[in-house]
């Protein structure tokens, strides 16, 4: 789980970040001057009511969106004005994503799903298979490598998605409502897995409504109306 970007200082650094959207004739101010640091090895939960800008913030940290103004740096590297090509490469090497709906490719096996980002990073086929197998074992699915998503439970699918997010050894793991589609017992398993990942050195930022998941984080950031109000 070693990160790709080394160095000192906060791993995530946002300064006066604003994000506006055009919604028909209206202008929505999703983020209104957010300033935030996340230290290396931290485990941060972003919480707040729906529409407060949590996911927008996560998207900016994950370099899949760009701020209207302000700066975003990941491990000291400015990412707020990257070209699409640069941003894609940056995400591939440094950021792991976990989504509420897992988004595994249904026709691929668990092993092939985990190997997908590695193929994109031009890792050799043998190395991909070895690492994907290790990652599946890490998330407790060593015996489910050949299973397709439809043959796995929701919790198992989310664990495959987590293994996929770790494929290229990311600096930062971002999760958007990772327990949102899981029952309480399975959600607890995912929470435990995140804690283990963090204990093993992965920096995690998670957006959630799940109190248990938020409580498991080392730090909780509260948001309201596009602003950080606490944390």
């Amino acid at each position, binding site marked *: 789980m070693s990160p790709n970007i080394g160095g000192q200082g906060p791993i995530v650094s946002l300064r006066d970040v604003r994000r506006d959207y055009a919604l028909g004739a209206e202008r929505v101010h999703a983020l209104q001057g957010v300033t935030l640091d996340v230290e290396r090895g931290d485990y941060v939960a972003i919480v707040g009511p729906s529409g407060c800008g949590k*996911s*927008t913030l996560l*998207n900016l940290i*994950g370099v*899949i*969106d760009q701020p209207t103004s302000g700066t975003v740096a990941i491990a000291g590297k400015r990412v707020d004005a990257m070209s*699409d*090509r640069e941003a*894609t*490469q940056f*995400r*591939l*090497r440094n*950021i*792991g*994503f976990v*989504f*509420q*709906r897992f*988004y595994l*490719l*249904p*026709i*691929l096996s668990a092993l*092939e799903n985990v190997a*997908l*980002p590695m*193929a*994109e*990073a031009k890792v050799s086929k043998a190395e991909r298979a070895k690492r994907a197998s290790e990652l599946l074992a890490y998330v407790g699915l060593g015996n489910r490598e050949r299973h397709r998503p439809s043959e796995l439970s929701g919790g198992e699918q989310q664990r495959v998605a987590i293994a*996929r*997010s770790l494929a*290229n050894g990311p600096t930062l793991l971002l999760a*958007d*409502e990772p327990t949102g589609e899981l029952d309480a017992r399975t959600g607890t398993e995912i929470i435990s897995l995140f804690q283990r990942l963090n204990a093993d050195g992965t920096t995690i930022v998670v957006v959630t409504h799940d109190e248990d998941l938020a409580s498991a984080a080392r730090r909780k950031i509260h948001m309201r109306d596009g602003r950080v109000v606490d944390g």
Partner: protein
Amino acid sequence: MRLALAQASLIRHRARTVLAVLGVAVAAAMLLDMVMLATGMRESFRELLLSRGFELRLAPKGTLPFDTDATIPGVTAVIATLRTNPDILEISPVLGASIHILAGNRDVSGSALGIDPSVQGDYELLSGRDVTTPDALVANDHLLSQIGARIGDTLDVATGYDPQTRTYSGQRKLVVTGRVKFIYGANDQSASAMRRETLEGMGRQARDRASLFMIRVRKGADAEQVRDWIERQLPNVTAISIATAIAQVDERLSYFRQLAFILGAVSLFVGFLLVTTLVTVSVNERAGEIAVMRAIGVSRSHVVEQVVLEGVAISFAGAVLGLALGLVTARYLHTILSAFPGLAMAIDFFLFQPKAAWSALGLLIVSGIGAGIYPAWRAASLPIAESLRREAIA
């Protein structure tokens, strides 16, 4: 991996993919048939002309062979002139006329060729013997069945029917010596052949004349040069080389080619739209999945490649299936078209040429690439964050 992903995407909705492939196959079959039709008649006509090795044909000035009743007089003198050219190997004069076979009250009409059996290039003997004697006649199956005659039967044959006096200019007993197949003849044509002097002897017109000369040139000789030489030496004839004949046929078949071109283009466009629609629908359905792929680091170019591959895969599968379907439908359509009266049996409307198949396949693959471009552009342009937000709301 991209090929596997494209395949995965297609397999996900098997029934839809199969229907799209079938749709493309129908379009491909139509396209192949139209490509075959556009070139088939021309090529089979060329093969027909070359089949007996006569590279040049001489017709009365300003006419095409057997287009009119006009004839070239002085066959002996013409042959003598032609023989002075060392590039000319063989000369086959042919006289054409209408004949009537009288059987009791019946009068069956047909066509007759007066030929020299040693150099003729108009028919193939199927059974019996050729017209080696002045009273011999060979006929095709259509004529024989019409008059109910067989080899060995004697026929009362007349020429030069005058409808006003209801008389014939000549009449003679001829013996059927053989069954033949006329190379340039139509299915429904009652045709026969006899020695040229026999046919001449039955008519009112002057002797020593021919409707057509077929000329074989020496191997390696330039047929066009020989053609020019003949036209200089014999001002009362039009010399037609195979290239000229094909050019004339091309001109007459331009309607067919235009029709084939338009129908082929429509087929290609329908196939293109079908693939574009299917792949676009598939991309729209997978917007969230594509956004996730982009989020985890899959590049735009790879998304484009995957989507274009889907289009190409459908087009390729449809094209291969369509090739087989096209050949079957071409045979069926040929049987319909070849029943058209007066067409030479040997003319193949849908002559299969590997080049035509490759052309159709190539066009479909290019169209498949083209069909994938729009959905690929859509997939690559999906705003990742916005697509994920929409998916979450959905």
